[in-house]
């Protein structure tokens, strides 16, 4: 796992802050994604990950801070962000349910084609060429994501896992330099998660940087070159999987810190002593487990905790 710091970043977010009235959902977050990198963004529910995504893609206008793509500041309009080269998927699948699979991907081509109303009405040779090219590119992407044989199906009729894939194919249709994936494996079984992992690697190998939000820790730590942890709107830590996994604050954020604060250290010691007395049968509850979370089994433990 090598971090590339020498090249210019694809995406730079500096001091991004998002306030909704009195609530600060995201508080001055800095993040950079470099070409050819897969960056993970994790954090407990409600940490502001999706809000941060929405700030990056122009769905929200950040209260403070700027987001720039390849050096130029992104305009706060979703369609302009996509045009610039940042594509995204959604946490809750947002396909065009009553359009076919192929049409969904063709809609994704929108920014990379120019044919307007007149050319559609007049149907000149340019229009036909552009339509054919769009279709060819869309079929390529469906081939790439393994949906080619379902091109004529309504997207609503696809099984769940394939709908997720179609969302990725649709996002890739705009030829993005950076792909933002919002929980791409939510609700998937282990096999499907593995397949998604392969897909994301393949996308990276094609030269698209990826920023991914996910709760599945095994997925994240397998996949990502770098992981950033967002807790209560703030970036807690950022680094390689090992750095993040061994950071106590991350564990605390996910599992809580039961023995700090009010109960007092003396009391904690008391409880510990009492537990030690009863330890024989149950093998020690929280504490041992917490230590475990920082180790290899961290992924699963953290995930279980998070889902509750």
């Amino acid at each position, binding site marked *: 796992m090598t971090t590339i710091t020498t090249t210019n970043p694809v995406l730079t977010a500096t001091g991004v802050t998002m306030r909704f009235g009195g609530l600060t959902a995201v508080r001055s977050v800095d993040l950079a994604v470099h070409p050819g990198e897969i960056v993970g963004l994790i954090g407990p529910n409600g940490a502001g990950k999706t809000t941060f995504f929405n700030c990056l*893609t122009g*769905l929200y206008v950040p209260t403070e801070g700027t987001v720039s793509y390849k050096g130029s500041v992104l305009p706060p*309009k*979703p*369609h302009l962000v*996509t*045009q610039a080269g940042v*594509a*995204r998927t*959604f946490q809750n699948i*947002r*396909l*065009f*349910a*009553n*359009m*076919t699979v192929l*049409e969904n991907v*063709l*809609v*994704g*081509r*929108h*920014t990379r*084609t120019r*044919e*307007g*109303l007149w050319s*559609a*009405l007049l*149907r000149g040779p340019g*229009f036909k060429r*552009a*339509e054919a090219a*769009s279709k060819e590119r869309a079929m390529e992407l469906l081939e790439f994501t393994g949906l080619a*044989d*379902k091109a004529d*199906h*309504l997207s*609503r*009729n*696809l*099984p769940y896992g394939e709908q997720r894939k179609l969302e990725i194919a*649709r*996002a890739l249709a*705009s030829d993005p330099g950076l792909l933002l994936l919002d929980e791409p494996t939510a609700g998937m079984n282990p096999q499907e998660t593995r397949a998604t992992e392969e897909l994301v690697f393949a996308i990276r190998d094609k030269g698209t940087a990826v920023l991914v939000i996910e709760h599945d820790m095994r997925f994240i730590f397998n996949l990502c070159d770098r992981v950033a942890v967002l807790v209560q709107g703030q970036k807690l830590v950022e680094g390689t999987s090992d750095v993040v996994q061994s950071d106590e604050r991350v564990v605390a954020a996910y599992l809580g810190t039961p023995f700090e604060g009010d109960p007092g250290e003396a009391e904690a010691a008391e409880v510990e002593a009492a537990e030690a007395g009863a330890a024989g049968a149950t093998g020690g509850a929280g504490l041992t487990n917490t230590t475990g979370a920082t180790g290899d089994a961290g992924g699963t433990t953290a995930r279980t905790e998070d889902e509750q």
Partner: protein
Amino acid sequence: MSTDTTKNTARNTGAASRTTLLRALTAAGGLAGVFSTFLAWTWTAEFPGDLTVYGYPGGLQLLTLVLALITTAFAGAALGIRGLRWLTPAGSTMALRGAALGTFATTWFTVIAIAVDLDGLVNLEPGGFVAALATAIPVATTFLLPDDTRPICRPKALPSWAEILIIAGAFAVGLYVLNYGIQTDADHPEPFIGYLIAVIFGALALVKSGLIARISALTTTHRSTTLVAALVTAVVFPFLQEKASFTELGVSIAIFATVALGLNIVVGLAGLLDLGYVAFLGVGAYTAALVSGATSSTIGVHFPFWAAMITGAVVSLIFGVVIGAPTLRLRGDYLAIVTLGFGEIFRITVLNLDGTSGPSVTNGPNGIPNIPPLEIFGFNFDDEHTFGGLTLDSNGNYYLLMLLVTILVVLVFSRAGNSRIGRAWVAIREDETAATAMGINGFRVKLIAFALGATLAGVAGTVWAHFQTTVVPEQYVFAGPVPPNSTFLLAAVILGGMGTIGGPLLGATLLFLIPKKLEFLQDYQLLAFGIALILLMRFRPEGIIPNRRQQLEYHETGQLDVPDDTGLPNSAVGVTKAEA
């Protein structure tokens, strides 16, 4: 186990012979119905249509005859008679029920109408009773028959000339049916009600039998033939009309169908609920009237028609953009309210531009009367013209002109709908947030749809003004008993089917023709509209002609991922799967 099987087999044989018997009875009932139409049903010609003659059918008897023939033919197909089996590719029972119910309803309606209109059953000849009894038999038998609905099997390949002939025949039959409806006697509602009943049940029977699906499959394989057939059918229409008033109906239908199709771009494709669409028709009509050289026009210019048409289109376009630009940033309900407001503002403004309440432009409530007839390159639309022995009266002229406009709008709709911009419209309709995240400039794309719809309505309005020879503000209301009004247009789109070409054309035809023919409904027209729409939303929310997407949505049998009927090893697994 073995005894069970034997019993089952015995029961099956019993059931099979019972089914055959019922089908034979249905066929016999159908034939009896056919026979009864050759008898006299009443003694006096006071009842509309000629039902007094022994020997040949007349008036409403014709409808019974046709439906009884269909019933007999379907029953023959159900009995497996060679040469008839192609009639019911999707199973015969449901089709038979439709046909039998249609025959029954039409006949009993006629018989009851005779008894009620002429005061008493005594006015019925024996033939009427024979008919009533004969048509009741198939209803009883078909409802005892088991349902044998099956997916349509791949039909035998026919030579392509035969397929083209079938398409031509289908259009000819369609034209004949439409013509029959238009030519029914407007002074008596009975023939038209009978016609409506017959058409509804007849169409139902044909749909259930799978014939309609077969024909629509043929039309998709022979697209150009279908287009030519549709065009020929439309062009031939005015030459078949005996009375000028029938052609006039045709012109009105063409105009409203065209405007409804324009609205379908806005509502059906882009999903923008526009409740003030009729105002754009008004803008086009008023523009054409003002530049027509009418004596009461406040602008003393006389544009040739092509220029008037372009002016009308451009002015409507400008209005569309001016209204759309601030309002299309709103979503959903807000847009509907703003467009509703705009429609009313247009009417009231036109009402007040009379020289006293405001500047003198539109003559206020008096409107602009005496718009001169159209003249294109010396071809006066008010005169009769004869081409090769065929005479076209004034209405015929306007009909053919309007047909050109309709073709233009159909072309615009199909080309724009099936392109990058059309996909963007549908994407916006499906999920605006996702669409913008895919790089679609939602505002811009919606404005294009709105302005395009406005322009097409404006073009139709220019012809409308000349055809009506007068424009008054009271025509352009939100809801009213006389079309055009925004509710009428929207109802036509929804009734026919959103997002299709055929839908609004059919919807506008029905909504215009039915109140015209049933004058006694006039006072209750809006009530009838409301009830019809409620029933439609309950039983067929996708409209009479669903679009391709909704067809896929409701008829998913062609999809590979539908879990049923492909390779579940045994029923036990099926049960678990269904329960899971």
